[in-house]
């Protein structure tokens, strides 16, 4: 580009690189330690949703969980790409991207491709695709600030945006993750906690139907721990869905007036 001066020199971020070793409080398995933001182990961050963030979209939502901030826009149902084969049911197309300033070091967003397909799989089961045959619904997410548990926040926010766009769903989709730190399970982990975690479990469900649409487990888990983690997530999801529902109700009653 003409505006740029010469070849851009290599740069580095002056912020101290994340420590390779765990801070001491994580090492003592049984000792009392507090989470960096002072939450209880089984306490989620305050969740905030607002619909109608992007006017150009058919439906949209903004979500903020602590420092994690995402925007999701929904477009359609609209004409599918020309190359697509005929389809009796509708198509869902998802994309997740990170803003360059979302991460502590510039331009180190997570694997977008991976997140896009995870988002697709998490939502697919909840949307009544039969209601928009031959067309496509696009769900696009932008992570403005990454503060941990990015994917669960994107999924929950996408479900609110889909509802805002009037896309038929069996139920709202809520998603929560837990991190396994030594012997403890911490819910809704922050970025810092995620970098030290020994394992993680993310659960996406439709709380009113009590059905799980996606469950991913990484790291080392015992069967008992998995049960405990799933129960934690299910409880949190149903609470989260209440918050999501009240946000939608508020928006609907606001627009009626």
């Amino acid at each position, binding site marked *: 580009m003409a*505006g*740029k001066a010469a070849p851009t020199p290599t*740069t580095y971020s*002056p912020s101290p690189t994340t420590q390779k070793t765990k801070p001491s409080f994580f090492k003592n398995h049984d000792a009392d330690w507090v989470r960096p933001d002072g939450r209880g182990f089984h306490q989620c961050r305050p969740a905030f949703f607002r619909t109608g963030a992007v006017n150009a979209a*058919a439906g949209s939502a903004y979500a903020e969980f602590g420092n994690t901030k995402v925007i999701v826009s929904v477009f359609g149902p609209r004409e599918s790409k020309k190359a697509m084969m005929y389809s009796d049911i509708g198509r869902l197309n998802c994309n997740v991207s990170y803003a360059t300033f979302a991460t502590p070091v510039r331009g180190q967003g997570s694997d977008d491709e991976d997140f896009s397909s995870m988002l697709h799989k998490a939502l697919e089961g909840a949307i009544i695709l039969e209601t928009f045959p031959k067309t496509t619904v696009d769900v696009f997410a932008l992570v403005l600030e990454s503060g941990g548990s990015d994917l669960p926040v994107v999924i929950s926010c996408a479900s609110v945006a889909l509802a805002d766009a009037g896309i038929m769903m069996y139920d709202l989709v809520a998603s929560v993750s837990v991190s396994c730190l030594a012997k403890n399970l911490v819910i809704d982990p922050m970025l810092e906690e995620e970098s030290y975690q020994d394992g993680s479990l993310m659960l996406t469900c439709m709380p009113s139907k009590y059905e799980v649409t996606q469950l991913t487990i990484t790291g080392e888990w015992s069967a008992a721990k998995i049960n405990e983690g799933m129960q934690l997530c299910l409880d949190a999801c149903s609470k989260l869905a209440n918050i999501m529902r009240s946000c939608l109700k508020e928006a609907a009653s606001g627009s009626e007036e």
Partner: protein
Amino acid sequence: MGYSNASGDLSSEMEVDAFRRLFPLRFYERHLAELIRPDGRALGKARDTTIALGAVASADGSALAKIGLTTMLAAIKMEVMTPLKESPDEGCIVIEFHMPPICSPLVRPGRPAEAAPVVSKQLSDTILRHVKHFSVRSFSGMIDLKDLSLVSGKAAWMAYLDIYCLDADGSLFDVALLSAVAAFSHLQIPVVSMNDEGKLIVVSEENGEKDVVNKEKRKLRLNRIPFSLTCILHKKYILADPTAEEESIFETVVTVVLDTSDQLVSLYKPGGPALAFTSSVQDCIALTKQRLKELQTILDESISGMEVD
């Protein structure tokens, strides 16, 4: 509101709406004859404008600017670089403008928006060339790149400015420039010191003040801030700050950039079917002058609002 009444309203509304979609030009021309626009604005009036500073906690400086529905989020991240040999005392600024697929139904992932590179180039031209042109002779541009120097010949700041369009509803360049300028005025340069390996790291509160390189230079001095206004030319009418709908109907736009000392920084008229008379160009400049005062007040208010907090 009675039921029959409501349905009556609806049918007339439908007709207007259909007319608007089928004959957009005629729809607009009827409004223009009355010197008013469909959204109730006078022709020379810009939409409501707001600026929120510090919207992104992970950046060193950030701002959210909104004109009407068009929303832009700008954030600056400071990184350290080795300065170029020919300018050992100067830092660098890199500007990128992004239109992610969330902002408009016309943008799809993997296929960048047509408008994005154009706006990106215009922004670089306005902010960077503005900088360079003046700093060669004396310091009178918006940002003196020498202010970004840390250790002569060894280290300087590279300011990465990324602007994301969150909602696209016309006059993209104006909002992008406003958010960029606001992000620069919010920028807080981190305090750094040299470590044993010769790298610069951020000084945290606890490890005290050993060899702090930049004690005083926490804020960038901004002189002669550029502000812009886009206008549509159609017959004898000039419409300031167009929406996306207006831009799609009338294809001739003129963008004027002035700086705070009332000097003309740039003037774009990227083609279009209407030709601009000198008088209408002068009218656009006059409108931009008025707008500049408005924008300056809004920016000053948002900055002083931050200081109170």
